[in-house]
């Protein structure tokens, strides 16, 4: 299995780099496990992770996972949108933001093909998300760039889609990240494209028959959505709960997270898609181990934190 590509932006030094992390299906970590060392090395770390199938064309494959430290714990929040898909088209699976920017300035993180740039901006405490979005859009490297801005209600993508909870947005604001822009022109190789395409087409057909209400321009749908959408004005970025159960963790780890369809996509469906994507046999238990790892690690980190603080 190919390694996970991890873009690291260090706000303390202003430097960026790209590292490869070992990942295997066997240990069920999809690169999340390899991030553990970074979690332990840096007290202030925020990670945007894309799932294995994110951006590959299956219905609902815009899944992503925000991991951040809050109240001494590592918390995960799953969301769905174009941002993580664009990240994978940039050639990255994880975007790791280390440290906190200075008190006088905030940072725009810009990710293009295999490259991360940090742009320092004078910090404005009362900057509205819409104004930030307009300013960042002016500097966007391409028309198709995806821009995420932490708002008071949550992380908003392109001013339309909530892709992270209020707590995740607060975590980004606390470290001084004003926006994350991703513009990728690369692609994702699929081992058995014909088989994968057949599976996707069948899923899309079934979804169209099951759900006829997929939104329209005034009611935007999440990226590669397989779910009905509420009107834009009714969106609440804080509504999508943080990762609560193994089902959601499984969906997020695989990159399929249709939040309003239920707790998880059918494991058998995910298994078939993963097998066609990787070109090797995948079992449901391997996938479930990945989901278990994410939830267990959150608990384990909390326990360690409690032990160290003695609370």
């Amino acid at each position, binding site marked *: 299995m190919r390694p996970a590509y991890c873009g690291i932006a260090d706000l303390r030094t202003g430097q960026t780099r790209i590292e490869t992390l070992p990942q295997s299906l066997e240990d069920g970590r999809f690169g999340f496990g390899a991030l553990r060392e970074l979690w332990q090395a840096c007290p202030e770390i925020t990670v945007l992770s894309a799932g294995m199938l994110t951006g590959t064309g299956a219905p609902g494959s815009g899944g992503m996972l925000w991991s951040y430290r809050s109240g001494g714990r590592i918390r995960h929040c799953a969301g769905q949108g174009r941002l993580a898909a664009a990240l994978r088209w940039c050639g990255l699976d994880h975007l790791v933001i280390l440290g906190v920017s200075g008190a006088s300035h905030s940072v725009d993180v810009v990710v293009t093909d295999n490259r991360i740039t940090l742009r320092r901006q004078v910090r404005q405490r009362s900057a509205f998300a819409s104004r930030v979005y307009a300013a960042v859009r002016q500097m966007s490297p391409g028309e198709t760039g995806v821009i995420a801005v932490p708002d008071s209600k949550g992380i908003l993508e392109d001013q339309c889609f909530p892709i992270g909870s209020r707590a995740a947005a607060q975590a980004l604001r606390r470290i001084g990240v004003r926006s994350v822009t991703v513009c990728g022109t690369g*692609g994702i*190789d699929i081992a058995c494209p014909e088989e994968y*395409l057949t599976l996707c087409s069948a899923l899309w057909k079934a979804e169209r028959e099951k759900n006829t209400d997929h*939104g*329209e*321009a005034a*009611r935007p749908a999440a990226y*590669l*959505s397989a779910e009905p959408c509420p009107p834009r004005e009714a969106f609440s970025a804080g509504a999508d709960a943080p990762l609560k159960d193994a089902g959601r963790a499984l969906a997020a780890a695989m990159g399929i997270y249709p939040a309003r369809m239920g707790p998880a996509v059918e494991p058998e469906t995910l298994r078939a898609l993963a097998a066609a994507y990787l070109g090797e046999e995948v079992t449901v238990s391997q996938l479930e181990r990945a989901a278990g790892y994410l939830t267990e690690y959150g608990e384990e980190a909390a326990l360690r934190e409690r032990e160290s603080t003695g609370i």
Partner: protein
Amino acid sequence: MKILCLDRAKCSGCGACEVLCSLHKRGRAQSAEARIRLKGAGTQGQYAAVCQHCAEPACMAACLKTIIRQENGRVVRDFPSCFACSACAVSCPMDAVVYDSREDAYMTCDLCGGDPLCVKVCPTGALRYEEPALASAGLRAAYARTAVGKGGLR
């Protein structure tokens, strides 16, 4: 002859057409090289860049190797002979000409031989495969409804 038409009022910007097109044509999920691409910021002002098979194609006039021609109203190209000068891409008013890095040639939508996949997967039904006259009649009707609604057409 039918062409691909997009109803912008229905398009939710989900991107299914782009990714499935690249998966079908390239064997990899690569939105930037799909032959139909969604342009614009978010879903506001979103439009699909896809070959409209113009009656008088600018790309055909611009092609330096004259490998672009019309067949039964469709614009087709002999892409193995393309030497990627990009004249067609620059002249296309729809920005619908895409560079295919695998073939090292510029490509446009070939309508999947008359059975476009993007239409099948479009969750909102915004993409349609229909006669240009029918599509423009629909657009005229939609415009008239909007204009009447705003107090126009008096």
